[in-house]
């Protein structure tokens, strides 16, 4: 994939990621290397208005807004700043992906309650994000991202805004998700995290991607 910004600033020249089902990659690089941008590109921009600022060399056919929504439902995204909706409770935030799909409210609530219980947040499900700690907010955000059973989970610095203990818990949660077969790409500037959890690392530098550590168990090919 190639990516240019406003048609002239080239961010990535030729990145070809071959991620298979069940893989776990760390996406690393220095600040400004383009980790978040790459994840955004995979998610097809932040929102359709900004989408036009990006021009892809091989642009996917996502002009159809319904198709774009369908594509995004296949992916889950986690942000460093959680991005929970402040006027909704933890439970309502988690049920959101099912709600926008038009799934029955009772069913969505039930599933959200189960998932929140799984991540150990059943006692705060009726609280608003502002009353939760950073670690709790990030776990709610992770739960929201996996609510729609995404094929690919994109995490942008999920441990960037939480303390070490919470970061450890969050990383173990990702490990658990990976064990259930979820495909994960986790962007972080903390390369020691990649080494600690022993997953392959895609290192971004000067618009190029390099595969470090080892290749994932699931594939012979690579970047």
């Amino acid at each position: 994939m190639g990516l240019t910004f406003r048609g002239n600033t080239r961010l990535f020249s030729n990145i070809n990621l071959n991620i298979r089902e069940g893989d776990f990659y760390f996406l690393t690089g220095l600040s400004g290397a383009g980790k978040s941008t790459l994840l955004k590109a995979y998610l097809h921009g932040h929102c359709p208005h900004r989408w036009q600022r990006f021009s892809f060399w091989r642009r996917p056919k996502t002009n159809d807004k319904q198709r774009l929504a369908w594509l995004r439902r296949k992916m889950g995204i986690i942000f460093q700043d959680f991005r929970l909706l402040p006027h909704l409770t933890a439970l309502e935030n988690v049920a959101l992906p099912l709600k926008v799909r038009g799934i029955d409210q009772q069913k969505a609530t039930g599933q959200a309650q189960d998932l929140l219980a799984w991540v150990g947040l059943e006692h705060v499900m009726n609280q608003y994000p502002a009353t939760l700690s950073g670690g709790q907010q990030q776990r709610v955000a992770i739960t929201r991202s996996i609510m729609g059973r995404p094929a690919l989970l994109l995490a942008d610095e999920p441990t960037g805004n939480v303390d070490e203990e919470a970061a450890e818990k969050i990383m173990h949660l990702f490990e658990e998700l990976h064990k259930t077969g979820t495909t994960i790409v986790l962007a972080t500037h903390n390369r020691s995290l990649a080494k600690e959890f022993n997953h392959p690392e895609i290192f971004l530098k000067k618009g190029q991607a390099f595969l470090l550590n080892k290749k994932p168990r699931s594939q012979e090919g690579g970047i």
Partner: protein
Amino acid sequence: MRQTTLPLGQDPSSRYLPWIIGLMTFLASLSITAGLSLNKLSGSWVRELGNYLTIEAPAAINGKESIQTEQEYKIHEAVQSFSRIGPIKSISAQKILGAVTGEVFTEEDIGVLPKIYEVKLNGAPAHEISALREKLKAISDEIRLEDHRQTRNTMGKIAKSIQVISISIVMLIILGAISIIAFTAQTSLIIHRNVIEILYLVGATPSYIARQFQSHATSVGMQSFIINIVLGIFLVTAVKFFSEIVFYF
């Protein structure tokens, strides 16, 4: 669990929107009502005025009743080709004058007043009216023929102008209301940009977002409608109350 995910009801920009829209629609409906009433009123004026002429003859010429009778006969003869109505009865004139001045008039009082003949035209052409004018002039120079069609035309023009003004006011109010709604929606989009962005990222379709705005707009519309109705009831009650006071005094 709440039905909407966008907190549009909490927007400071749309807090007073139902009141503004309610007031504007109330003013628009007032303007329409006034325009329609005026249209109806002017229509009946135009019909009435356009179909009648008035002949005003002196009560007595040099105090001679015989001449008066002769003159009356001649006038009757002149208006034969028209569908004649007049003269206005003495009792009717007493009532009209009594209502205007607040005094009691006797038949003698009325007798000194000029005699009024109403002549129904029934679509008579202009040259017949000119001929009638000549005939009346021949009877006496003091007999006056009032042609109300000019007044009718002026009244018609005034009524039309008021209608145009009323429609313009309604159009302006509608345009203003649409602009307010459009700008409020745009402001809401800016205020809730982050929420909308997250909704898109979790897979919301544009129609899902639009539905939230639509249901909010419907709710605002309903509130405006209620405000409009309340203002209407208040106005009708006030008008009734003040009219009763005026009649009392």
